[in-house]
């Protein structure tokens, strides 16, 4: 049982990292970044390339992956989202989906469809505490995710750019009147969200020892589910949603069969959307005239 909790926590914290990107972008743009799962995939590939080809140590590969994905995120925003800032939602949505499909198939064209192994750049240690088994991956994933979340919290709550992000999320027009460059804030938000997704991509790619062009789709959907579960737009909600989803999935697999793994996540998504679309910590978003 305790083992399941540990598994759920590691899985959940990686979902939380993905969910944060969705939620931050939603906070400022009221838009779900469909290409987010693909950014996660791009991050995993950059991490793989830097640690395998360039032979950089793990921490450096992680930083490069995060920086690279942040750059991709900003470019995606600039091309597919920014010109449509005042366009109807349907146009933005279609553009976002187009971007997601483009990135996935671009990776397919460049990298080929095969799944690549992620060489582990450090020695995996196992720790046995009675019946509880923890390995270096669990520790690494947990520590990295928690570290990044604390850093994010600090960034959003204590820095000037974080303040600008919160202001833009609250009210874009007022924020721009107060001298905040809303476009820059949005680009920054995409960069941060993409970097977090890349971190999750590297961690999960390494944990499952598999990186491939279509790896972004399921975690993308699950990160989205986590964001919705916690309340889209709320940063603590994304963290909570991620952990809860990870737990539910691990428990579900323990009780049912592993084929139901993806159905559990999707069942939760359907349930939350139908019963309480604002999520656990989200504010009720009502359309006003």
């Amino acid at each position, binding site marked *: 049982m305790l083992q399941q909790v540990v598994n759920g926590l590691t899985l959940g914290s990686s979902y939380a990292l993905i969910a944060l990107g969705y939620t931050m972008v939603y906070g400022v743009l009221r838009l779900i970044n469909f290409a987010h799962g693909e950014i996660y995939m791009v991050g995993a590939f950059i991490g793989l390339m830097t640690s395998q080809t360039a032979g950089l140590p793990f921490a450096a590969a992680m930083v490069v992956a995060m920086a690279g994905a942040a750059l991709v995120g900003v470019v995606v925003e600039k091309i597919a989202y920014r010109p449509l800032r005042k366009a*109807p939602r349907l146009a933005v949505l279609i553009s976002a989906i187009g971007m997601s499909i483009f990135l996935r198939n671009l990776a397919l064209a460049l990298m080929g469809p095969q799944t690549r192994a992620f060489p582990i750049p450090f020695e995996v240690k196992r720790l046995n505490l009675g019946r509880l088994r923890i390995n270096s991956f669990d520790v690494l994933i947990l520590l990295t995710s928690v570290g990044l979340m604390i850093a994010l919290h600090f960034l959003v709550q204590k820095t000037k750019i974080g303040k600008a992000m919160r202001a833009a999320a609250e009210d874009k027009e007022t924020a721009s009147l107060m001298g905040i460059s809303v476009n820059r804030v949005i680009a920054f938000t995409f960069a941060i969200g993409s970097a977090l997704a890349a971190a999750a991509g590297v961690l999960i790619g390494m944990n499952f020892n598999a990186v491939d062009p279509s790896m972004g789709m399921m975690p993308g959907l699950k990160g989205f589910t986590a964001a919705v579960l916690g309340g889209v737009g709320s940063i603590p909600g994304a963290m909570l949603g991620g952990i809860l989803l990870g737990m539910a999935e691990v428990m579900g697999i323990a009780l049912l069969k592993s084929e139901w793994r993806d159905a559990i996540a999707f069942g939760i998504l359907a349930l939350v959307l139908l019963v309480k679309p604002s999520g656990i910590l989200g504010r009720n978003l009502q359309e006003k005239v």
Partner: protein
Amino acid sequence: MMISPYYYQLLVIASINVIMALSLNLVTGCAGQLSLGHAAFMGIGAYTAGILTSVYGLSFAVALIAGGAMAALFGLLVGLPTLRLKGDYLAIATLGFGEIIRVSILNMKVTGGPFGLRGISKQTNLTIAAIAAVLVYWTMTRLMNSRFGRALTAIREDEVAAVAMGIDVTRHKVLAFVISAAWAGIAGGLFAHWFRYLHPSSFAFSASVEILSMVVLGGMGSLEGPVIGAAVLTYAPELLRGVSDFVSQHRMMFYGALLVVMMLVRPQGLVGTGLNGLRVSKFRRSRGLEQSGIDMVRRRFASAMKRAQRKGSPSPCVVNEQLADLAVRSGAGSSGTGVAGGGGEEHAGS
């Protein structure tokens, strides 16, 4: 008339794609509800019709209609819960349901699962496919000029205003979804009896995206648009096959790029008329970012006044307090609520 078998096949596929594009256009183009699982309805129709003729020996016509009916039933089952959702949520929900349907087909015995369904007789020909496409087109023209069609347009342009005009939004959306699913199911039946072999992968997410690309390329919400889009995107890959292997192998990449480029350059599609289909209503535009700062301050002031009056003390002192509060709130993020924004805040005071 003599046509080579190659072009004959292309024309049959084009007719099926025209039905699919028109069908998606009803939901996405006319009613403005983005569905990303449309190929799944085609799959339901294809498998239903295919199983009925090959296993139960029913006639082609009955099987086609049954396929459409089955797809419509699933359209109702999927549409009832999901169409209460909006925009991005609806897109994700339909994507998910589409995948669930595909995975179910993959895991069922009667469908042949991962081995596919074999032994369907070849009963579709160009005449039948073309007649079906023309019928759907004709129905679409009738629908769009009806009260129902105008209600869908109203929903697309401004849902809140549509409600205010007394339109039962959910009912109209679900009905559009069901009709659209039925057409997709019939297209599926034609597809099954042309290729004689069905596999779940033909009805995956990427197939839904292909159909969406046709609608977007031609012009969402227009009548001819989806027809032209379907024709172009049926023929283009064949044309490009001779030019470059790379292009035909990575078709989806170009579809993705196409969706983005169309939205940036020509959101109304190739033949869409003017801004029809994706109109920002004047009302909405007027509260966009371009309004002047003084307008906004005036608006905020009025709302502060109103709030003060609601509290039952219209004294200037309270109003000032409200204004002070306002100044703090609109200041560069002095409220500690995190990035979480209030959805209505953009329109506060309107």
